[in-house]
């Protein structure tokens, strides 16, 4: 429906490339930097307009190029789209903070990763006759939102560390990079991991069962190894947070490590062949 609407408006969706929305997000980031020097309403609204334009182009691109889901490219594109929506809503919620300085680079990083992801022609979701469609969808959705949660927790952790160091340097009141307070950042982090961990675990379990059923992947498959390691770090993070009652800096550092494993899970299959459909379908 949105696709036909855009076509109806005379937009040629085939001409929308990754560079269109990457440029919008990059400009929004530049304006975020500019706002540090000269805060003001016009810049803020221009930045929002750019992010919104990027979001429209991003959606149109996914609608025309990444559907049906094929390969890791489309999954990372979806992940970056959800984070772009999150960024845009945050620009209204956290108006006076340098929110975008932390969120936009993650979005741009994911867009860049998607750009270089091998594009498999094989659909991720199998045809209905194979009878696994619903489980593959659940596996995909759970993992996608688990990854969104981890990305949000990562950004909150980065902000937490910067804010913490500002406080330690006693430079927080005149800080050139304004940020939400530590408690708010902890709350964002806590909510994000509380949502992400169960989703991520369920997604992995379903994927594991599918793998056993189809026997399509080996135990040494790069996707499986990196996802398993990511889950272990994630579990360690939850353990440290809730059982050992560790808070603050160490939790933030562990979250950054977990995000590193998420990136590894996206990048490693380029070099270490994987049979997973999102890795390009290399057997």
């Amino acid at each position, binding site marked *: 429906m949105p696709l036909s609407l855009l076509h109806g408006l005379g937009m040629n969706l085939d001409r929308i490339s990754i560079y269109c929305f990457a440029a919008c997000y990059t400009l929004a980031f530049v304006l975020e930097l500019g706002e540090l020097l000269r805060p003001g309403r016009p810049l803020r609204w221009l930045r929002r307009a750019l992010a919104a334009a990027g979001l429209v182009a991003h959606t149109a691109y996914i609608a025309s190029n990444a559907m049906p889901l094929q390969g890791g490219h489309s999954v990372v594109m979806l992940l970056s789209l959800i984070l772009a929506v999150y960024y845009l809503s945050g620009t209204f919620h956290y108006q006076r903070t340098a929110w975008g300085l932390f969120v936009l680079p993650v979005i741009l990083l994911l867009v860049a990763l998607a750009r270089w992801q091998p594009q498999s022609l094989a659909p991720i979701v199998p045809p209905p006759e194979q009878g696994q469609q619903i489980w593959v969808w659940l596996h995909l959705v759970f993992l996608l939102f688990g990854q969104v949660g981890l990305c949000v927790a990562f950004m909150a952790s980065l902000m937490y560390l910067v804010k913490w160091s500002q406080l330690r340097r006693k430079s927080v009141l*005149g800080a050139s990079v304004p940020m939400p307070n530590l408690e708010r950042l902890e709350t964002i982090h806590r909510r994000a991991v509380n949502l992400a961990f169960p989703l991520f675990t369920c997604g992995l379990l379903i994927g594991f069962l599918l793998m056993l059923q189809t026997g399509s992947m080996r135990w040494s498959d790069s996707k499986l190894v990196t996802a398993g390691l990511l889950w272990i770090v994630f579990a360690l993070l939850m353990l440290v947070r809730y059982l*050992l009652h560790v*808070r603050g800096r160490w939790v933030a550092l562990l979250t950054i490590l977990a995000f590193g494993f998420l990136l590894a899970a996206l990048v490693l299959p380029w070099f270490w062949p994987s049979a997973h459909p999102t890795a390009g379908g290399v057997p």
Partner: protein
Amino acid sequence: MIRLVGANFRTAPLELRERLAWPAAAVPDFLARCQMDLGSEIVLLSTCNRTEIYFASSELPSVDDLIRRIANDRQLDPSALGDGFYIRDAANAVHHLFRVAAGLDSLVVGESQIAGQAQTAYELAVRTGTVGPTLHAAFQHTRQVVKRIRAETRLAEGKVSVASLAIDHLRQVFDRFDSKIVLVMGPGKMGAVALRHLQTLGPGTILVANRSPEKALAMASACNGQALPWERLDDGLRQAHIVLSATGASEPILTCARFDAVRRSRGGRHVVILDLAVPRDVEPAVAEFEEVDLLVNVDDLQQLRADVLRERARQVPAAEAIVAHEVDRFMRDWSRRWAGPAIAALHAECDTLRHEVESQCLARLNGKLDEADKQVVAGALRLLQNKLLHAPISAVQDEAQSGKERGLFDALIKLFRLKT
């Protein structure tokens, strides 16, 4: 025309400023009397650091007369006031008003309280009925100037009182305070001020510990808190999210060993410590514990205060430029408003005369000129009119913009018998 007569902390000693300060209740009466006697608009701004009276009228009273009135009202010897007062007229008075309201003329540059005081003075004069179009325009423009300076510069940013700076730090750590436990250790004078600021955040629980149980009880009841026996200080340290310390102890009360002993039972909860005591109550090394998000002492806060003041000083040129620009804009707008109708009337009068002359001339030359010649004659007369009027109109506009005299303006009205 606007005239300002005033004295402030730079020109008058405290004793004189004290005697010049009008009690709020006496202001309306003074304003009403002045207006009745002088027939001018009047606003009185009276704060602890300044007393300024703004007059506006086409014919202003003499400075001596104004000073005599002020002296009579405040029961002072007029000769004692002479040196303490400054007089500003027209654009200079507007410039002064804008600077004062923006905090550029304040003892602590950039303080924002004065903008509210100027607004209150204006509103009181409005209620008393002593404000007319000139002072209305000036004070309403003042509000815009203050707003613009706050939006475009950082002149009013940051706090300069040590207690409020300490509280600002808490806002950088905590999002909400209704669930927070505050431990106050033997608050001295500065601690009590900080506690008052802290209460405005609405903390969940306030525990007050003092070596003297009576003092702890008194302070606790004053701040709706709970007194904590000094011997149970460690219990308070175990629970607290915020520790505010300002005792008179000569040795640190919160040592590393003491904090290390209680931190294990804090459940990983973080804490902010505000040490407002001199000598310090908290060992600096306590800041190294992971649970301590922030340890701030008096030196840190003084340093921050100096940083805020330095930053404000850096913003002064930008704010002064805005003031200068706005004064110029105000004077231009104002001159257009009062000279505009007279100039328009002059143009209309001359247009009528020109059309009369042009008609007579063309009637005499009837049949001798074609359409192009008639256009040339009309154009020549129009050009002559514009050239003749250019100099007097410019002079009247310049006079209006300077805001000082109305001589040329009045002369123009009389010479051309204009009805404005």
